[in-house]
C-alpha cells in the first residue's frame, strides 16, 4: 500500500475508533455481564401510585399507565392480561433497561400497584448490550442509533486495521499463523457444539 494511502487509512481508523470507543467499552463490559449472570445482583420492591387514566383497549391503556408512571420499557403483548369480567386489574409487564415492572392497574380505584425487579446499575449496563430501542425514553432511542452506528463501524475498524497492517503481516508470518490457528480452534469448538 502506498504510504499516503496507508496514512489515510490510519487516520480514518483512529478517528472513527475514537468516536466508537465509549460504545465499544460498554459493549465489551456488558458482554462480560451477559455471560456471568451471577455477577448481577437482583432485588425486588413493591410500590403504589394513584393515576388518572382514561379507560381504553388493554395495550393502549398499558402504554398510558407506563407513561404516567414515568417508566420506560417494552410492553410484551403476551404479558398483557385484560381485566376479568369480575372487575379485576389490568395486568402487564414493562421490560426496561435491566429491570422489569409487573403492574396491576385498578381502573375503578385509579390506582397502580407495581412490583419492581431490578438488577441495579450492573443490570442496566448489561441491558445496554445491543439495545436498539427503549419505548418511553428518548435517550434509549438515541442509544439505539449509537448501537447501529457502532455495530456497523466495528467491521470497518477491523478491516481498516488489517489493511493498514498488510505489509507488516507479510513480514511477520507468525502473527498470521497465530490468527489462523485461533480462528481454526474456535471453528472446531463451534462444530463440536453444533454437530451431533
Amino acid at each position, binding site marked *: 500500500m502506498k504510504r499516503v494511502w496507508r496514512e489515510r487509512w490510519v487516520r480514518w481508523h483512529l478517528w472513527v475508533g475514537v468516536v466508537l470507543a465509549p460504545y465499544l467499552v460498554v459493549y465489551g463490559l456488558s458482554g462480560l455481564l451477559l455471560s456471568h449472570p451471577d455477577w448481577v445482583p437482583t432485588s425486588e420492591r413493591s410500590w403504589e401510585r394513584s393515576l388518572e387514566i382514561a379507560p381504553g383497549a388493554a395495550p393502549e391503556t398499558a402504554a398510558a399507565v407506563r407513561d404516567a408512571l414515568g*417508566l420506560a420499557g417494552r410492553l410484551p403483548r403476551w404479558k398483557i392480561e385484560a381485566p376479568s369480567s369480575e372487575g379485576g386489574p389490568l395486568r402487564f409487564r414493562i421490560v426496561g433497561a435491566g429491570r422489569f415492572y409487573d403492574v396491576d392497574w385498578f381502573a375503578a380505584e385509579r390506582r397502580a400497584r407495581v412490583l419492581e425487579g431490578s438488577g441495579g446499575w450492573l443490570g442496566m449496563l448489561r441491558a445496554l448490550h445491543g439495545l436498539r430501542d427503549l419505548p418511553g425514553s428518548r*435517550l434509549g432511542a438515541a442509544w439505539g442509533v449509537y448501537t447501529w452506528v457502532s455495530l456497523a463501524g466495528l467491521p470497518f475498524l477491523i478491516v481498516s486495521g*488489517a489493511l493498514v497492517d498488510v505489509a507488516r503481516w507479510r513480514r511477520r508470518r507468525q502473527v498470521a499463523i497465530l490468527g489462523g490457528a*485461533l480462528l481454526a480452534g474456535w471453528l472446531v469448538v463451534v462444530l463440536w*457444539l453444533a454437530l451431533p
Partner: protein
Amino acid sequence: MSTRSPLRLGSLVAWHRAAALGLGASLLLYALTGWLFALPELGDRRWQDTEHTLSLRDPEAFHRDPGAAMPELLEALGVRARVDRIERSSAGLDVLARRPGLRVELRADTGESIVVARVRRGGPFRAGSALHGTIHYRGGLAFVLWAAVADLSAAALVLFAVTGVLLAWRRSRGLTLALLLPTTAFTVAVVLALGSL
C-alpha cells in the same frame, strides 16, 4: 513517556494489534451466528423429531434425582446435551435437555419404569443461530470453551478501544478530545438516566 513505559508507542501498537487479532477472528464467528439469528428465513430450520422409549434401571432413583441419571439416558439416546429444566408434578417428571440445534424432551410418569423421549434436531442453521446466545459456563467443555471465547472477545473489545484512544491521543490530543468528549458525555448521560429510572 519513558521508553520502558507500557504506554510507549510500540507497546500500545502491540496491545492494540493483539486485541484486534483476538477480536477479528471471534467477530467473524459472532457476525455469522448473529446473521443466522437475525434472519430466521435463512436455511431450513424445521425440527426433525424422533420418539424413543427407554427403560429405567432404577425408577425410584431417577424420580428422586433425575439430574444425576440424565447423562446415562442421554448416552442411551446417542445425543450430547445439557439439562436445562426439570419440572415435577403429581403426574410425573418433565425434563428438557438442550444443545444448540437440539432438544431432548423426556417425560416420566410417576410410578412408571419407562421414559418417553422426544429428540428434536433443528439442523446446522438452527444450531448456528442458537450458538449466538449460548454464553453460559455450564453444560460441558465445549460450552465452557465457547463462553470463554465470548469473554475473551468482550475483554479484547475493551482493550482494543482503550489502546486505540491512547494511540489517537499521541497523534492529536485536541482532535481526540473533540471526538471523544461528546460520545463519552452521551454514554455517561444514558447510563445515569437509565440507571435512575
